[in-house]
């Protein structure tokens, strides 16, 4: 991937997203999902793992990028930040599936493509099943704010919670979802 060509654009989107621009944030995540898919497929290809596992990792990394975006330092380059997260998630995946670099069959090394937009692949995760694992308050907050797209204040009225409680619940919910993806993923591999 040519970092120099995408860095300024991705960084601009990231900065807008940090400021609360939802459209920019969405564009950023879409661009990143393509890059991450290429990256994880390239890495997993060396371990004989397929596109479903890659999609699990793409989704896990996207949630991590979203919930940890406050850790990006605007005075630094954006691409190394993304790849450090992706690499961390990949190493974590290897650890929990008990694979190691030693299993690596060199002849299967797959070339990483710059952008992989094969969005037809579904991850092994079932959103409804994941949602069922959340506490009722958190589930409600995610449902209203993140799925139905109600504003935080509307959701607060419907849930009978304060706005800051709704925000906290949404944040917690996303992290809990990421955690469940981690666990589910591990179950599939074992």
């Amino acid at each position, binding site marked *: 991937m040519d970092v120099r060509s995408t860095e300024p654009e991705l960084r601009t989107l990231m900065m807008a997203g940090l400021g609360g621009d939802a459209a920019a944030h969405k564009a950023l995540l879409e661009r990143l999902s393509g890059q991450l898919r290429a990256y994880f497929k390239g890495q997993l290809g060396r371990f004989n793992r397929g596109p479903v596992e890659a999609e699990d990792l793409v989704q896990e990394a996207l949630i991590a990028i979203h919930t*940890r975006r406050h850790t990006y330092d605007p005075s630094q380059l954006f691409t190394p930040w993304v790849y450090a997260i992706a690499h961390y998630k990949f190493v974590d995946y290897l650890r929990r599936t008990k694979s190691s670099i030693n299993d690596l069959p060199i002849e299967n090394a797959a070339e990483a493509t710059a952008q992989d937009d094969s969005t037809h692949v579904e991850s092994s995760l079932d959103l409804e099943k994941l949602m069922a694992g959340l506490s009722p308050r958190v589930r409600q907050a995610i449902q209203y704010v993140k799925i139905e797209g109600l504003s935080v204040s509307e959701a607060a009225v419907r849930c009978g919670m304060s706005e800051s409680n709704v925000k906290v619940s949404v944040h917690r919910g996303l992290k809990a979802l990421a955690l469940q993806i981690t666990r589910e993923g591990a179950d599939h591999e074992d």
Partner: protein
Amino acid sequence: MKTDQLIDMLSTNVEPVKSGQIWKPLIWALAIGGAASFCVMLATVGLRTDAAGGVHIGFLALKLLFMLSVISTGTALLMKLIRPGQEAQKLFRFLFLPFLAAGFVGIVALALQPPSAWDRMILGTEWVTCLFCIPLFAVVPFALLIWALRKGAPTNLKRTGAIAGLVAGALGATAYAFHCPDDSLTFMAIWYGAMVVLCAWIGARLGPWLLRW
């Protein structure tokens, strides 16, 4: 689940990110952790008594200087370690400076005294207390630091855990310095240094387990 579905979810109602979200928890952890270890010191061994010669400002200041330099370098390093993709190698080397400096003055202090005085300079009067107190006083700061670091995104868990242990140990040693009746630079270099390093080692062992995200 399709990834597009997830992206829709994540980009619905995007909240702006406030600056300072990353370092505030760390500062709180240091402040509350430091205060907590001071209180634990007061509640257990207490301030240095007059019987032990009262507070000797000079030696207390040197002990504090040693520990505060470890705390400040360690904290600066933690700030980098919780941001993915940041190089912290240079700062990491700085961390050894306070230990080298303390070791150096410890040896010089020994060299200036006749060997008959070495026993007292090395073991002091309360080296066993020091051995137990520093790790004990470090427990609360360590727990708070872990809490704060989990709000960031450390990617090198072993190293982050080690630095958290180091800073917590140094906070514990800072509290202990207010009790410590041993006015010897050699004592400080050996026991303070060793206990802080021990805390760092424990932190490194616990890091991958406590900090995973």
